[in-house]
């Protein structure tokens, strides 16, 4: 039976009860409790500096004693009555909880069902057991709901921005989708390595952080990768270089303005119009399904996979002096950029050893597309179809128990029937375990 946990009611800013307005639960402003007419007396100024919650934990006795002494100070009786009434109202009002500055939405108040005697429906019959009753409420999935994390700029936004840098939680497994995203990663990496190589790493991180896998995907993968003069991967058209870099820069700039809270200016509007005009030529990809990815892959020339992703750090490691190697390590190479971007887009982390051994794009793709090793031998045998054509071989995914063996020969039902007829346990020893003499001594049997 579900029990309702006893929750404290912190009443934060995001607290939104169904019946009581939020303003009623907030602490009243200090100006109300400390009127300017009464601020001349030292006692009232001291009280005005306290919040109502502080008052609750202080002893009220000296205050009452001070109130009785007020007529001796020469104040009027009408004014005194008014102050007394205000004091009483403050004393008996509900304690105002501390206001927490948060955007999180806390669970609502507890609702209880009416008692059986209060139910008017004559056909109502209260349940005696919890079996078959619908389960309502509970706090188990409260934080799974994104709206409970506040607005976009709050904690949820921060969590999303932090996790998106490391890629999706679940890896992309479809080979066509992986190929499309890998091409996007390589195109972006080549472009960024050319234009933003001299920039600081933080700047390059920003370029990648704000364009997700579907952001202008059709524009980026349209760029054709070809084999360069020395076998290195490069982009064929000059216009593609600028276009891809422009897409990345625009996304980063837009995100920065959003963070700074600036309104989109005329320039952004012009950029948006320009982007829309160009998008009209190529339809935007809203969802990268395996079918869409497959059609994209088929439309490309297959020669792009033969291009190499060369790592100058490795290439010049032997021949260069050490300080120059250190200098080159600071440079972001296309291969490293591509690996980093692949992790962001697909969730696949390419280990350094495999990255260095993968010279061409084709070998890199093979490592990504390769399915993970099955943990069980039975799964492997089934997927590979090792015993597919052999009718005399049976492969079991789990241990064959004595019960399984009885079931195979059709004896298990009879065994169960006979055991139940004799009031014996079907599985295990039941009450028949242990020395019977001990039970006699203990008086249990």
């Amino acid at each position, binding site marked *: 039976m579900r029990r309702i946990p006893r929750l404290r009611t912190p009443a934060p800013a995001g607290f939104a009860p169904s019946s009581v307005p939020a303003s009623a639960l907030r602490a009243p402003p200090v100006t109300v409790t400390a009127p300017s007419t009464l601020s001349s007396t030292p006692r009232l100024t001291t009280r005005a500096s306290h919040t109502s919650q502080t008052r609750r934990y202080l002893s009220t006795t000296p205050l009452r004693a001070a109130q009785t002494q007020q007529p001796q100070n020469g104040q009027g009786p009408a004014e005194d009555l008014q102050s007394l009434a205000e004091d009483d109202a403050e004393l008996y009002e509900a304690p105002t909880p501390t206001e927490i500055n948060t955007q999180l939405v806390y669970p609502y108040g507890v609702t209880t069902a009416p008692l059986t005697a209060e139910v008017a429906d004559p056909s109502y019959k209260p349940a005696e057991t919890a079996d078959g009753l619908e389960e309502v409420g509970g706090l188990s999935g409260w934080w799974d709901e994104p709206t409970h994390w506040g607005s976009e700029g709050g904690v949820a936004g921060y969590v999303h921005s932090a996790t998106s840098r490391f890629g999706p939680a679940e890896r992309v497994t479809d080979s066509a989708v992986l190929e499309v995203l890998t091409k996007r990663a390589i195109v972006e990496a080549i472009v960024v390595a050319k234009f933003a190589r001299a920039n600081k790493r933080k700047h390059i991180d920003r370029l990648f952080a704000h364009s997700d896998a579907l952001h202008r995907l059709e524009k980026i993968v349209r760029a054709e990768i070809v084999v360069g003069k020395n076998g290195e991967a490069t982009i064929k058209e000059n216009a593609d270089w600028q276009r891809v870099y422009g897409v990345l820069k625009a996304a980063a700039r837009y995100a920065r303005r959003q963070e700074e809270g600036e309104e989109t200016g005329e320039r952004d509007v012009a950029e948006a119009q320009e982007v829309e005009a160009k998008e009209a030529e190529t339809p935007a990809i809203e969802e990268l399904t395996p079918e869409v990815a497959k059609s994209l892959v088929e439309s490309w020339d297959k020669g792009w996979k033969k291009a190499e992703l060369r790592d100058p750090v490795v290439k010049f490691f032997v021949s260069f002096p050490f300080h120059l190697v250190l200098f080159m390590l600071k440079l972001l190479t296309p291969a490293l950029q591509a690996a980093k971007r692949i992790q962001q887009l697909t969730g696949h982390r390419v280990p350094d050893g495999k990255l260095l051994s993968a010279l061409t794009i084709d070998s890199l793709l093979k490592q990504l597309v390769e399915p993970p090793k099955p943990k069980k*031998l039975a799964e492997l045998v089934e997927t*590979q179809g090792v015993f597919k054509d052999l009718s*005399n*071989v049976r492969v079991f995914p789990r241990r*064959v128990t004595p019960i399984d063996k009885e079931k195979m020969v059709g004896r298990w039902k009879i065994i169960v029937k006979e055991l139940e007829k004799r009031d014996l346990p079907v599985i295990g020893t039941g009450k028949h375990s242990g020395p019977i003499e001990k039970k006699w001594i203990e008086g249990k049997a």
Partner: protein
Amino acid sequence: MPIKALTQISTGRNGVGAFVLQCKKMDFHYCDWAGSSKGMNGFIKSLLPKFAASHPQVEFSVSPRPSKHPVIIAQYINGREKAICVRNMEPYEILKKAELLRDASGEKLRKVTKPVQSINESVRGVWSPYHGNGLRV
């Protein structure tokens, strides 16, 4: 053309016309985690398909037995069974053991002293005191 009264449908092989393999079933047990099953897992993946294909008259069963050493259990038509633990063995060593179990008769291992074994040892039959004319002393 001479008339044949009965057509001959089988050829006599002098008592050796049929051979029945004594092994009827083989169970291969392995563990997915333990290192002692490494060779057995490799055997099941690489060598067992060919071995099973060459013995269609034998039933093969492959099942895991977690936290136990790998073992081959062979069942014979005389109702007996033989088991061999193949822990830490290489796949080809396991293949040798599987062939050994396949070729076994299922009987207990005992020293063979006579060159010929037969369930009907004497052509003349077992002597009985209640038959025949008896011997007068």
